[in-house]
């Protein structure tokens, strides 16, 4: 069935939904993981996201007009994650389990230094304001472009570009500050 063709039966809807979750399971899981900081809650959030998506899938297909559904899916995860923290009265975990660090390739020489740098970046991401953290996760973990991120966050393309730019600059400042302090302390 063509991407922009509406399903004609319940079986078509289910087939399209199966296709959707197979294509985007990794995206939703990655997003959830970087939002909640651990695999257990990320699994819960991923499952809830797809169940919620299933409930509204037909309407989403009608309203998408053939546009990709990934931003819609990530927006559901985004809203559920917000509820997750509100319901449990807690914030994202300060440290992230080191899945990203383990899966990223490193040369032997740079292993220790590289891991510290990546950990500093991950810690910095967790300290960013919510909207900046969200935008960075969508861009770098999911590879979404500005337009997709804008749709997921309900912003304009221009505002999203500025948001991303500021997020990167702020994070870069946060990561380089401790290094500068350390270098200054040695002098």
């Amino acid at each position, binding site marked *: 069935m063509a991407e922009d063709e509406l399903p004609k039966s319940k079986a078509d809807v289910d087939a399209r939904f199966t296709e959707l979750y197979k294509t985007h399971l990794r995206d939703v899981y990655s997003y959830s993981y970087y939002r909640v900081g651990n695999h257990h809650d990320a699994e819960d959030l991923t499952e809830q996201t797809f169940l919620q998506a299933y409930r509204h899938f037909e309407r989403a297909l009608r309203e998408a007009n053939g546009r990709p559904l990934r931003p819609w899916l990530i927006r559901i995860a985004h809203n559920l994650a917000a509820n997750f923290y509100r319901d449990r009265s807690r914030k994202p975990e300060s440290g992230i389990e080191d899945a990203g*660090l383990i899966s990223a390739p490193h040369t032997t020489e740079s292993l220790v230094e590289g891991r510290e740098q990546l950990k500093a970046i991950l810690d910095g991401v967790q300290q960013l304001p919510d909207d900046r953290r969200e935008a960075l996760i969508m861009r770098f973990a999911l590879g979404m472009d500005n337009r997709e991120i804008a749709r997921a966050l309900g912003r304009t393309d221009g505002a999203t570009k500025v948001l991303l730019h500021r997020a990167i600059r702020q994070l870069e400042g946060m990561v380089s500050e401790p290094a500068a302090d350390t270098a200054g302390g040695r002098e």
Partner: protein
Amino acid sequence: MSSGAADFEALLREALSPVDPPADLAQRLELTLVNLTELAHEELDSWELKAMRDPRNWVRPAAAAVVGVSAGTALVVLRVRARHRVRKQRSHNPVDLAQRTLHDVAEEAGKILPRRHD
């Protein structure tokens, strides 16, 4: 873009590398979606005979049956299933468990049904 900025973005991309879900998550999720309606019927089967003897309970299976034919069942069943362990711990016997399950299904159906008119 300066090379420093490009380097930092490369590091960021490495730090936030995509995370693979556990191998069984996709299968579990698919199974959950496929079994939702069946699970709703099982929940109904387990208590409907007992509950139907009491007219006060007739509205509950009716509500569960309505959601049993829609995607809304997904949330009802998932929420009811999620509390199964708690219900079991608190139940004194199978009849008590069935009544608690009945109550949870009715409560969750009540939460879901109004939203279906959105």
